[in-house]
């Protein structure tokens, strides 16, 4: 999955460079500070928050899985930036729709884990809503322990399975 994304990022970077070349001699080493009339915020140049390509290129939007501790639904700090990004995307794209798929590891009973998966989905939903998403944009569905990413009975797998996945059903 990583390679096409990298190619895309590279392509965008080259396109950016090409666009700049007309005016500036050495754009790569020395980002021109005096082109402010054209692009006031240089790093944000490609970041149109209504361009669907951003969803597949900006790392915090490409990242779509939040992981959890055992029997917990507290969002870990490492997932915060990613969730804020998706919240921002929802705010910028009123037509965007997300299905949050909540999952649990295999330990414990299946129906309880269905509840746990939903609770994790809800925790992610709450964060998306706090960061600009609206409730009609976000649905939650729990798969409990029925859709593991990994099937070994040890923590290396369990930690991958305790997750909530952001699935875009509409990007804009």
């Amino acid at each position: 999955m990583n390679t096409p994304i990298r190619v895309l990022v590279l392509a965008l970077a080259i396109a950016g460079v090409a666009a700049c070349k007309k005016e500036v001699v050495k754009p790569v080493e020395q980002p021109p500070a005096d082109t402010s009339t054209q692009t006031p915020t240089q790093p944000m140049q490609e970041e149109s928050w209504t361009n669907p390509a951003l969803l597949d290129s900006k790392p915090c939007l490409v990242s779509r899985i939040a992981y959890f501790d055992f029997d917990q639904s507290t969002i870990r700090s490492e997932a915060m930036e990613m969730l804020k990004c998706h919240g921002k995307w929802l705010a910028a794209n009123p037509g965007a729709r997300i299905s949050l798929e909540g999952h649990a590891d295999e330990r414990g009973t299946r129906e309880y884990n269905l509840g746990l998966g939903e609770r994790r989905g809800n925790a992610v939903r709450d964060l998306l809503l706090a960061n600009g998403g609206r409730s009609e944009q976000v649905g939650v569905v729990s798969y409990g322990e029925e859709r593991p990413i990994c099937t070994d009975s040890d923590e290396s797998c369990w930690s991958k399975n305790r997750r909530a996945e952001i699935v875009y059903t509409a990007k804009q």
Partner: protein
Amino acid sequence: MTGEPMQRLISSLFLLAMLALARNGAAQGLEIDIVNGREAAIPIAIVPFAWEAAAMPDPTGIDTVVRADLNRSGQFRALRKEDVIELPSRGSDIKFPTWKLLKQDYVVVGRVQSSGEGGYRVEFELHDVLKQQSLLALALPVRAGEFRQVSHQIADLVYEKILGVRGAFFTRIAYITQKRVGDGKFENAIWIADSDGFNPQRIVWNAEPFLSPAWSPDGKSLAYVSFERQGGHTIYIHELATGARRLVTSFKGINGAPTFSPDGSTLALTLSKSGNPEIYTLNLASNNLTQLTRHFSIDTEAAWMPGGNSLLFTSDRSGKPQIYSVPSGGGSPERVTSSGDYNARVSASYDGRLLAMVQGNKNVYRIAVVDRVRGGAGAVRLISPGPLDESPSFAPNASMVLYAAREGSRGVLYAASVDGSVRQRLALPDGDVREPAWGPFRQR
């Protein structure tokens, strides 16, 4: 990506290994895992039945089925077939000193005859060795292809005559399988089978998972959860004879853990339409839905107590999953389990005396049977070894508990005697097996 052919190879090897296992199981009969043995297990000899009918003998060994049934209960210790040195088929042929010498308390003999209408009649007798007395002599009609069923009925009658408790071998179980059918693709199915796992029949199947099959008290229907509808869960009631399905609920969020009330009129279930999972009851005639719990925790896995006046359920309102009780007419829940970090998915025996549940301790999940009358140190018995055992369900006579276990990355089913002394892995189809539910008594 490079791991994929390897994975495919491994899963094909795995399938082959399982096929081999399944064949061995069918050929050799099922292995019984005697855990501790049981001092009080009753010695009984089941003599191979004589084939006196005109047609070719049915390949089912009636004696083999009866022997396996009685052993699996933990209440009996049946004489091994190779130690059955005389083959009487009638009471008058039994030489009691032989069986006394073999330290047998009881002996069962029988024969199969043509019944005239293209069917058969199985006659059998149960004798008390010490008293040299006939306790039971019955003739059961049987059609071709139903010899396993009649064998289970014989086991039930012997069990009941000696123990005074109705046997539960002539019953059925339901369970769920998941089989990989391609990259990231699965076939999920609900099956019913005889209580020993033989004669499996696939009831329904789909690419999406099923959960929590539950028998109606009359044994005619199963309620279950399906993920087949996009973006949500649905509870169905499925009539086994016709295959007709009734969509019961498909609210937003969880529609889970259905279970029929003892009179069959009401379904208890879990819905999260209010924002978090709560226990509800649904009157199946009026469709009247009643909310029983109101708490921000996870409340789920309802189980009816006999009589239907109260329900048990799992809740993590104290921080971790524990078992609670609530009146079926509504009221405040009371905590039932006091010990253990994780108690969930309870089910009650027919008399309400025993509760079976999943008890978790660190990473080990075992089946616990709690005796509510006994109390004290002996009140909680762990009847399975773990580490990932779940979905306990009692035989309708509470002699055994059926549960799911993981062996490697595969799910299997076990039947354990309620005292944990005997455990048997059931004959299974290939694939990953889970979520067993023991059905009610059947009419003979």
